[in-house]
């Protein structure tokens, strides 16, 4: 661009002045914490260093220590299982509810959608508190219902004292909270599919399953990918529900990676190991996300 055509200096710097506050915020509250996390993870940073400073550089020692700790691998495998189970349940149930919604009458659909929005609007901590009450051993309504159904073993059953039971409650809580988003998003996608596509599938004699597989799924594929990857991210990094219900217990049965990193740092004051665990958490999340998207992509290829 010739120099004489360029606008005056004031006009040229205007956009940079406008984005300056965003850049300052991102630098101090995002980039600096990320850099600090990486730095702490290669230092010896415990309680003494937190108070007095002067943390020495130790290279990759923290990462070596974590990766050679069998507990870290147990937690990692559990986190992947937790993410896979929740994501499968949420997308599966979300799809079923969405397919149901399009077929419902107007009034019933409105009622179901209102209930879904109600769940969506429930704050995480409010929902967590309610689920603790639902599954309370004494006077909890779930134990009462199971007892009435003939499962007398659940009379006064202490859900939060057993590892499998606590894990189940947490899965139910996360799935209950997340299905509305998936269902309403997929329902939104379903309503955009032109009616003619179904019409012609019917004329060609396609079964309901064939119609779903050959008409609905291909059209909704981008939305499926979006919902699945968001659910992978959300359930993988889920922290508040687990921390409030069980703090990762009983006996570490519900400790996932984010909880693990926080425990090491906050309870054991091993900030260095906690930071290393956080870094590894992000890397594993990225790997899990890429794997999920790849798998979806491959299925797409197989079906086409």
């Amino acid at each position: 661009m010739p120099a004489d055509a360029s606008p005056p200096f004031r006009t040229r710097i205007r956009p940079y002045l406008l984005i300056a506050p965003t850049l300052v915020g991102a630098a101090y509250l995002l980039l600096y914490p990320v850099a600090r996390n990486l730095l702490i993870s290669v230092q010896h940073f415990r309680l003494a260093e937190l108070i007095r400073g002067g943390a020495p550089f130790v290279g990759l020692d923290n990462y070596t220590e974590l990766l050679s700790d069998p507990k870290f691998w147990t937690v990692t495998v559990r986190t992947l299982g937790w993410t896979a189970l929740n994501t499968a349940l949420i997308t599966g149930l979300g799809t079923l509810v969405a397919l149901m919604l399009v077929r419902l009458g107007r009034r019933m659909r409105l009622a179901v959608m209102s209930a879904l929005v109600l769940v969506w609007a429930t704050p995480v901590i409010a929902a967590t508190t309610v689920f603790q009450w639902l599954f309370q051993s004494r006077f909890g309504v779930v134990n009462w219902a199971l007892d009435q159904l003939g499962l007398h073993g659940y009379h006064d059953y202490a859900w939060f004292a057993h590892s499998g039971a606590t894990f189940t409650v947490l899965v139910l809580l996360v799935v209950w909270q997340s299905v509305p988003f998936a269902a309403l998003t997929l329902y939104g996608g379903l309503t955009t599919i032109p009616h003619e596509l179904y019409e012609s599938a019917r004329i060609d004699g396609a079964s309901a399953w064939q119609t779903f597989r050959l008409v609905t799924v291909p059209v909704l594929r981008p939305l499926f990918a979006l919902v699945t990857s968001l659910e992978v991210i959300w359930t993988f990094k889920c922290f508040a529900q687990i921390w409030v219900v069980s703090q990762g217990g009983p006996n570490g049965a519900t400790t996932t990676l984010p909880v693990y990193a926080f425990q090491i740092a906050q309870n054991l004051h091993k900030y260095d190991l906690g930071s290393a665990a956080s870094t590894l958490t992000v890397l594993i999340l990225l790997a899990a996300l890429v794997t999920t998207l790849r798998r979806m992509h491959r299925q797409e290829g197989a079906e086409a």
Partner: protein
Amino acid sequence: MNPLAPRHLLAPRRLRRLPLNLAALAVLVTAAFPVYWMVVTAFKPTAEIQSATPAFLPLHPTLEHFSTAVHAPGFGGYWRNSLLVTLGAVLLSLVVALLAAYAVGRLRWRGRRAFLLLVFTAQMAPWEALLIPMYVIARDTDMLDSLSMLTLVYFMTTLPFTIVTLRGFLAAVPAELEEAAQVDGCTRAGAFRRITLPLLAPGLLATSLFGFITAWNEFAFANTLIIKNQDARTLPVWLSSFANVFGTDWGATMAAASLFMLPVLLVFLFLQNKVTTGMTAGAVKG
């Protein structure tokens, strides 16, 4: 329904739809029951809460539990803290995001794409992984146990979304309107303030309400950054420790949870459509 259709054809159709409607009913009940149970428990007298057979309808409603919750030590303070932090973060984020959204949506400049990439990346930042460095930074700068650090963190967590969404709303306001005002002698800033800003108001409101919900509900940072000074806690952290506050008084706990949920629910009801369109404009089109 077609009134001319013979009766024997109508009945099977209704019968065919029965499983579907039953499934819908099951979804409806599963979704709504926990929230219903929270509200019903909050209104039931203690004797009905602690009974071997639960009462499914609040036949003897009482406000006793709400009174217990409201009179719990520090209740007013936690509300004030939550409101201060949330409103502070949302307003700050709105102002900063508006400037950035204008730069991105209305001006052409070198680095614009890189800046947008930064915003999109920040939108996906795994904030939970930054709990430890945030704690260390807050401690180093004497910001631990203070609401200002929490406000700054919430400002940053809501900022990327706010920029992206406002950019979507701004794109819906034709730039020609501003240009026309400039031709008529307005300055650039004046044209924006007089023409675009009023048209942008619904978008600003919807966006800020979404930010409000995010900040109002946040737990992890509030739990990490406020430790010693219990008076500076926010509602989610207070509610999560209900066992220390109310023991096994589930009526009061559910009353507190209902009160905590109320503002969010009002926001959802008030602007559900706008929030949804805002989210599609921001998140999907982006």
